[in-house]
């Protein structure tokens, strides 16, 4: 029971820190000492205290966007095992709920963007839904591989690091899955090289351009939700690449947090060493991700 | 009794020819029709009819056909007075007389068991019909009549030759020469094959011309297109049934002979050919009366196809003769009304019939749906039975072709019919004096109801009659 509270606590508190770590890493690479690690927290608090501006064209849909985005991320977080600790909510088919929760969030954030009636935000919404059409199958192929390997239909058991078929069979597919998941993670969370969260050229943005009109608490919820999404998907990836455990309950928590921060560093490194791709290449990479995971499945079915 | 059956109508015909008044003469037609219907009722229910030492007999098949033709004629005759009232400008003396004469001659065809006599009667029917086609006295009707007459007569002449061949086939084997159906059926196994073979072909072509089977159907679109709807209905429902009966007679003989397989083969072939020809010509058909003619060609094809298949299909074919006839009654009469209302029968001018004619228009559409075999309707049951028979007898490809052709015909007719009934009528059409009157639509409604009822429930007596007729044709004596 206490584990559940720890899980929820981590889910609520840790996500912004990842952003902080990423920014710090990039700063160090750039030779600056950069913003403090806790900067994202200050931003969120500031945003929550600000007032808001609403476009005259908007309706309830515009306000629903951020709320739904955050709520779905939260619930999705409850379905993912953190480290060795099984998820608070876990049942056969929860991975499907996991994927569809993010789809629900996407539906409303994109709608909210269209609600403003701005050409740029429409553009962003279009890109968001378009790319996810390619990301979704990739994600599901990964799930298929994991389900086959772990002979189960629930994320907790999929990710508990035990493979009835034996590590020999599992390893090749898992590598492919990890690669695929990493690409999906970067795209879905609009990271370099696919998207640049702090660019200032609207024409080239995907996620950020959708939220141009949100302000104050709404913007805060959006950023918080985004961070949480990154965290949750990161947790999945972490379990695939490093299903380690340290026997002791609290040590496992520590291991998990360390792992997440490590992942953040990796992302930071990637963002520092790579340039942003042209928009037209994004689909190519997503298709590649799909193919990787398809091979993963085929390896198992042969 | 047999005598009355065909003499009474002729009497009425004479009466009509003599009658002075153009106004009440038409009423002789329904009168004659009713009398004939009553006589038929008596004949059918009473003791077996036979006269003239077996020349005139009422066997199961002829009972069926007679009842149907008599009913058909009666319903059409109800329509006649109102129709002729629409055409006061022209004398209907010849028209009425010929209608009644036609009835008499058809009756004679049906009850004749002497093939020569039957031939005479059929030729007489042709001659009696010619003036009916010519009723409109327009150049086009003249052309139609000429074609009908010449092609019909030539065909019939061939049939006569065929009849002679048949007779000779018995002489040749040194048997007692005869043209009596029953004797021939019994002698069939002994008849000389080559003569019988030739005879069957000649008769099929000859009476096939009369029935309108492809490729002898060429007169049909012209005749049906130019004739008044009433006459069209009688031709498509009555006369063709008589010709069909004639073909049945000779099939009866052949199926006892070694020629049976050949006969079946030919019948199936002609049946499919007729359906195919109809399919080709209904596509993009502009003239909805000619379309009906081709539909009639198609259904004649279905009839002979069913006979060729045999077994359950024979039952289906006999039933189809009735259901198709009734449905054709609906279509021709309503088409006639539409023609009157728009005075055009081309889909270029005719549209919105459902608005222009609140009763005839929908009936026309309903008739189309029925005749193309949409359930629930009489033709559906009969066609379905034929299909089952076809599959039962293992003619899978025939069944496939059958369905495919039905589909094509449906597309062709559907396009034309919908163009007629849907949309908004032109102002010119709204201006014409014609309006749906009770006398003009009630017969159609009766036809429709009968056809529909046959689709939902076949009366027990009729079912028995059909069953007997089928077994009688298939050689079992009942």
């Amino acid at each position, binding site marked *: 029971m206490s584990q559940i509270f720890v899980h929820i606590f981590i889910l609520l508190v840790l996500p912004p820190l990842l952003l902080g770590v990423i920014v710090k890493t990039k700063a160090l690479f750039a030779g600056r000492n950069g913003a403090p690690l806790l900067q994202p927290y200050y931003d969120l608090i500031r945003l929550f205290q600000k007032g808001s501006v609403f476009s005259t064209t908007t309706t309830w*849909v515009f306000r629903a966007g951020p709320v739904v985005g955050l709520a779905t991320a939260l*619930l999705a977080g409850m379905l993912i095992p953190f480290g060795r600790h099984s998820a608070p909510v876990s049942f*056969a088919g929860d991975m499907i709920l996991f994927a569809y929760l993010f789809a629900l969030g996407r539906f409303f954030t994109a709608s909210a963007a269209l*609600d403003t009636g*701005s050409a740029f935000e429409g553009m962003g919404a279009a890109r968001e839904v378009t790319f996810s*059409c390619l990301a979704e199958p990739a994600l599901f192929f990964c799930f298929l591989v994991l389900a086959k390997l772990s002979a189960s*239909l629930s994320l907790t058991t999929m990710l508990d690091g035990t493979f009835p078929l034996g590590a020999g069979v599992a390893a090749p597919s898992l590598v492919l899955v990890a690669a695929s998941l990493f690409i999906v993670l970067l795209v879905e969370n609009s990271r370099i090289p696919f998207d640049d969260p702090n660019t200032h050229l609207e024409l080239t943005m995907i996620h950020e351009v959708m939220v141009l009109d949100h302000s104050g*608490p709404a913007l805060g919820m959006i950023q918080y939700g985004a961070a949480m999404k990154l965290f949750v998907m990161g947790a999945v990836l972490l379990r695939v690449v490093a299903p380690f455990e340290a026997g002791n309950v609290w040590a496992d928590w520590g291991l998990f947090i360390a792992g997440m921060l490590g992942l953040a560093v990796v992302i930071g490194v990637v963002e520092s060493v790579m340039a942003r791709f042209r928009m037209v290449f994004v689909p190519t990479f997503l298709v590649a991700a799909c193919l990787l995971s398809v091979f993963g499945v085929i390896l198992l079915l042969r | 009794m047999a005598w009355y059956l065909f003499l009474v109508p002729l009497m009425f015909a004479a009466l009509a020819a003599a009658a002075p008044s153009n106004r009440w003469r038409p009423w002789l037609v329904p009168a004659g029709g009713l009398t004939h219907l009553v006589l038929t009722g008596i004949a059918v229910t009473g003791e077996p009819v036979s006269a003239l030492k077996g020349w005139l007999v009422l066997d199961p098949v002829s009972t069926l056909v007679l009842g149907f033709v008599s009913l058909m004629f009666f319903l059409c005759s109800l329509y006649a007075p109102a129709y002729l009232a629409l055409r006061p400008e022209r004398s209907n003396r010849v028209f009425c007389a010929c209608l009644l004469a036609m009835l008499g001659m058809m009756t004679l065809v049906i009850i004749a068991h002497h093939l020569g006599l039957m031939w005479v009667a059929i030729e007489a029917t042709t001659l009696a019909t010619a003036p009916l086609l010519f009723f409109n006295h327009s150049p086009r009707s003249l052309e139609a009549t000429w074609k009908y007459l010449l092609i019909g007569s030539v065909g019939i002449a061939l049939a006569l030759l065929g009849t002679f061949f048949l007779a000779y086939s018995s002489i040749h084997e040194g048997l007692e020469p005869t043209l009596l159906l029953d004797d021939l059926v019994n002698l069939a196994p002994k008849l000389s094959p080559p003569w019988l073979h030739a005879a069957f072909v*000649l008769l099929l072509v000859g009476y096939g011309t009369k029935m309108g089977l492809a*490729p002898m159907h060429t007169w049909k679109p012209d005749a049906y297109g130019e004739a008044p709807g009433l006459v069209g209905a009688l031709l498509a429902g009555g006369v063709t049934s008589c010709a069909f009966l004639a073909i049945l007679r000779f099939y009866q003989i052949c199926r006892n002979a070694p020629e049976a397989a050949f006969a079946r083969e030919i019948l199936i072939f002609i049946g499919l050919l007729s359906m195919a020809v109809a399919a080709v010509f209904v596509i993009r058909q502009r003239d909805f009366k000619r379309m009906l003619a081709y539909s009639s060609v198609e259904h004649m094809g279905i009839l002979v196809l069913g006979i060729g298949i045999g077994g359950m299909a024979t039952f289906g074919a006999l039933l189809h003769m009735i259901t198709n006839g009734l449905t054709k009654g609906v279509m021709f009469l309503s088409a006639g009304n539409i023609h009157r209302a728009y005075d055009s029968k081309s889909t270029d001018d005719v549209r919105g019939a459902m608005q222009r004619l609140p009763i005839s228009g929908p009936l026309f559409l309903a008739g189309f749906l029925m005749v193309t075999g949409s359930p629930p309707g009489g033709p559906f049951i009969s066609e379905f039975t034929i299909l089952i028979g076809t599959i039962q007898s293992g003619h899978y490809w025939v069944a496939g072709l059958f369905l495919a052709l039905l589909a094509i015909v449906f597309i062709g007719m559907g396009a034309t019919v919908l163009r007629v009934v849907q949309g908004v009528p032109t102002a010119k059409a709204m201006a014409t004096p014609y309006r749906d009157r009770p006398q003009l639509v009630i017969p159609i409604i009766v036809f429709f109801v009968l056809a529909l009822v046959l689709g939902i429930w076949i009366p027990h007596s009729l079912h028995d009659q059909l069953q007997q007729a089928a077994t009688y044709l298939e050689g079992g004596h009942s």
Partner: protein
Amino acid sequence: MNEWMVIAGIICHALSGVPGLFVRHDPSTGQRLAAVLAVAGSVLGITGSLAALWNPVQLIPLMRLDAIAAIFLIPIFLVSALGSIYGLEYWAQADHPENGRKLRLFYGFVTAGLAGVAVAANSILFMFAWEVMALSAFFLVTTEDDKREVREAGLLYLVVTHFSTLCLFALFAIWYVATGSFALAALPPGAVTPTVATVLFVLLVIAFGFKAGLMPFHIWLPSAHAMAPSQVSALMSGVMIKIGIYGLVRMVSWLPDPPVWWGGSLLALGTLSGVLGVVFALGQHDLKRLLAYHSIENIGIIVMGLGLALVGRSLNVKAWIVLGLAGALLHVWNHGLFKALLFLSAGSVIHSTRTRTIDQLGGLAATMPRTALFFAIGAVAICGLPPLNGFVSELFIYLGLFRTLGIGTEPSWGVAAFAAAMLALIGALAVACFVKAFGAVFLGVARSDSALHAHESGRAMTGPMLVLAACCLIIGLIPWAVGPMLGKGVAAWMPDSVVGFPPLGTLAPLGWISVAGFTLVGLLMGLGAIYTVRVSRSRVAAAGTWDCGYAAPTPNMQYTASSFAQMLGSFFVWVLRPQVNASGKQAVFPGRTHFHSHVMDLVLDEVLRPAYQIVVRLSSWLHFFQAGNIHAYLSYIVIFLIVLLLWR
């Protein structure tokens, strides 16, 4: 008892339009009577069907009212009644004196026909009901037969439905020859040779595929749905195409020992239909055509479930049967609910703006808030997103497909697993398509005057939508309530092996779904509350949309539906093949320019129409033989005579 309630319900519906024919003085009386009769009939029918779920009735030789029939009857009655209420305002007799009566008459007939098909246990009766349904639907589609495009849609529909009827002829004829009776019941093993069984299977896939609008038999569906009045579209798309599914589900279950490839091919067809359906939906500019193509997509999903169940039956894996069939049946319900909801709300838009063109609408959420909300609910549901009903049925199918990998002790038929990923693709595309539709129609700024002056519809139209939306939510939140009914359906599908069926509850996390659903709702409410409180406590300013510094934004600068779908469309350009007609780039100072793109239907416009043109040309060549020359006619006779004489 309950069968008589159903029969009474059918009769009520059949007669619902009749009184209106005789009430001429006061236009509203007839339609009120019709609605009352329809509602009464539906209440009777639904009660009877629900009762029949637990004690099925068999009135051989005519009628069978078992779980499967009941499951299909319930949406028929529900949607039909709601539609006729909706019609009171949408197609008020006062506004449409010329065709209102006709519409209501045939509306009743269609409902009766549909219900008749569902309960028929005799092939002749089946075909009667079938044709009554099909033909009445034709008259509904051509309600406005003064419009040319309506007439064309009507002809197309009529031809296609007759094709499927002819296939039924063949099907039932063979059935009769095989069984020797018109009674419809399961064929005992070995009743037919494998060849005949295959022929039957192919025939029924074609016949019912046409009615269900399964790719590639969908050709009639888009135009018919677009041209019909909206409550009719709701009925057709919601329940009429499901009767095709009914036929498929029912008859397939009666064919003995199916080979695996049957289920496999169904699975493939379903996937194809699902993906292409939604892809073509992306290309549409007409709101109702878009919804119509989504029907094709959802039919595909249903058939996927059925195919899975069939595979399970061939390999004798009960879990696949249960999950696949339960998913299919539940999706039949769900699609009936949310697609009807979507068509009704689309109708409400059309009713107030008089246009179906998406790119002329926009900003309606402000003027028609209720309609917008209902459309949003429908959209979320049809995308299969939690916490609504669409998610539940798709989850079942997902679980079944995942299980084909061979989870635990079950055998593995991994090919099917790819369908799971395709289903994910379908879901994502559906989200894209409905964001586009919802956004372009209801959000942003009005793109035309008609959209600018839109007004909310009255109670008679919003009421039915409310009911449907509520049903979507209920099924989505408490699926364990419908679980047992589906179990009955599954059991009825395989009467021979009722024993040892794992109950749906053990295979699908019904309880957890509702936990998750309620949690989600709770979170939404909580966060929503916090947010609103936060906003209300702080300073709020209203301003124009931030347009990145552009001087004079106009409504035309919004992202339109076409531009929204442009990028996705470019991925599928190989199948969509849009015909673009645009004035190209211009000089330094561009003048007026135009852009128009149109997506043809792959099967209809690019295969069938050309083929038919060839047939027409061929036949017009052959017309030469009927050239009016009597000499030619006579020579045909001679030639034919000689041919026949030389035949043998």
